[in-house]
């Protein structure tokens, strides 16, 4: 009775592993191939000879290091602002009583579901009027429009799950709301804050549409936009592009390995409850 289920599970596991890993392996192996090896289809599946020349070329011949710096600065600034705004808002909605609390919670959920593709044209106009386009500051302002609703929604859940007694004890001892929030609740919500920060970082790191529309100056573009310049140039730098993909994916994967369990919990919390 159990045999067919076990067999099916094993076969399914192998199939899913192939489906998921083949594209990653294709990226990685391409990044270690020489230009000639790719161009003349020599030993298609493995890099032979194995070379680092794409990585060296990417680092010395293109503006990739600059793009990487821009992406990093943007992601860090956005993560910091998002964490502050979302933890304050999430705390207020989860723990304070005030009229219209339910409506604020619904508003946050609705905003989290509004796709960036709806707003890029008017947002571009608003940012242009603020004089913020063509510079990373456009992204500092634009990215919180999707990171903040998402992270606030996530943190409302985390704050709601904390026991009431601790905060009440602090308030009875004469602490103000602000002190109770900073000293008692924030440390307790640390796992939630880390998960939310990593989401904000990843979303900013990978964002493409706003970065493409709001910034034309090649000195201020981020990695995803830069990658597209590598293909639509006159020469096709396949190997370099794949090397760039490897370098860009590593930081996110590293963060993710570190918090994967919390991240999964946060991810599914919204859709599974109830």
């Amino acid at each position, binding site marked *: 009775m159990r045999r067919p*289920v076990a067999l099916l*599970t094993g076969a*399914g*596991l192998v199939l899913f*592993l192939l489906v*998921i890993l083949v*594209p990653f392996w*294709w*990226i990685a192996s*391409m990044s270690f191939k020489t230009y000639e090896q*790719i161009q*003349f*289809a020599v030993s*298609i599946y493995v890099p032979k000879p194995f070379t680092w020349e794409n990585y060296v070329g990417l680092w010395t011949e293109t503006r990739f290091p600059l793009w990487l710096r821009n992406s990093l600065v943007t992601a860090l600034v956005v993560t910091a602002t998002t964490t*502050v*705004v979302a933890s*304050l808002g999430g705390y*207020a909605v989860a723990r304070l*009583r*005030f009229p219209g609390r*339910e409506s604020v919670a*619904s508003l*946050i*959920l*609705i905003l989290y*579901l*509004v*796709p*960036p*593709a*709806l*707003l890029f*044209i*008017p947002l571009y*106009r*608003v940012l242009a009027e603020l004089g913020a386009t063509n510079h990373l500051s456009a992204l500092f302002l634009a990215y*919180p*429009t999707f990171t*903040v609703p998402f992270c*606030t929604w996530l943190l409302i*859940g985390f704050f709601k799950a904390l026991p009431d007694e601790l905060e009440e004890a602090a308030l009875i001892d004469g602490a103000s*709301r602000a002190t109770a*929030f900073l000293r008692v609740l924030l440390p307790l919500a640390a796992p939630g804050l880390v998960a939310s920060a990593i989401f904000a970082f990843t979303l900013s*790191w990978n964002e*493409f*549409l706003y970065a493409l*529309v709001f910034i034309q100056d090649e000195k201020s573009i981020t*990695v*995803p936009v830069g*990658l597209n310049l590598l293909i639509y140039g006159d020469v096709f730098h396949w190997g370099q592009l794949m090397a760039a*993909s490897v370098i*860009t*994916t590593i930081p*996110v*994967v590293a963060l993710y390995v570190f918090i994967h369990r919390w991240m*999964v919990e946060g*991810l*599914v919390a919204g*859709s599974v409850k*109830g």
Partner: protein
Amino acid sequence: MAVGRTAGVPAVRRRAPSWGRARRREAGTALLFLLPLFILVVGLIIYPFYRAIWLSLTDKLVGYPERFVGLRNYAYLIADDTFHEVVKNSLVFTVASVALKVVTGLAMALVLDNLVRGRNFFRGLFLLPWITSTVIIALTWRWMFDAFPGRGFFNSVLLDMGLLNRPIAFMATPAGAMAAVVVANWWRAFPFFGVSFLAGMQSIPRELYEAASVDGASAGRRFWHITLPGLKHVIIVTTLLSFILTINDFNIIYVMTRGGPGTATQVFATYSYEVAFNQLRWGRGVTISIFAVPLLVIGIALISRYLLRGSR
């Protein structure tokens, strides 16, 4: 509320004034804490949205002042053949990839749920596509479908297996290009479905399965009568969420096909970008994304109903 009706007991006197003050102070703190969020939301989401509606009523061209034209942009698009194709493409793209995601997500969740060891490890590994940059995913799939054997994975494999004698240019035909963008979108998001469904499966009480086994129900019947009904809520929410995100997808299509060949894969977001930034017709460009709003509103209303009900 019910106090007044309780016989013999006078309505409870209002609490001491200090309590009311504490309550007002709490509301004040809440306002203060929510202020940064409100500024952001009003300034960078609600105000731009209002501007979008206004722009859609003008004939704004880049470099010219906007002129009010009423519903002319809407009328133009309703009569426009290209826009009809965009609507059709958006729906085909979305329905096909969301359907694929549900089916493979269920299969993935079943496989993980039946694993005796290493479930967390494989769940983490399977989520990798979901955290990888969409641009990188789109570039990779673009090459995997490339006609050139040294770069295109599928052509290399099919040629080596002797199933082809010359490479196929998948991305050059309308149907092939559509299939390619659907596959890339599916690959990126199905692990999210799998993980959500797995969490749903694990919250179904084990006793139900045990009782069914005792009664002699086969694995297939247990799946049909216990697992699927137990997952109903998760499936609905995940599907709606994915529907909203997919129908507004920009990255995958822009990077893989730019809406081509011709307009075969042009969808709401890419067409809106094309009209606004290549043809420089901002009014019309905005109107295209506004046409997706009714679908969006329905999706959002349904999800909110499910999620807010769940959280209370």
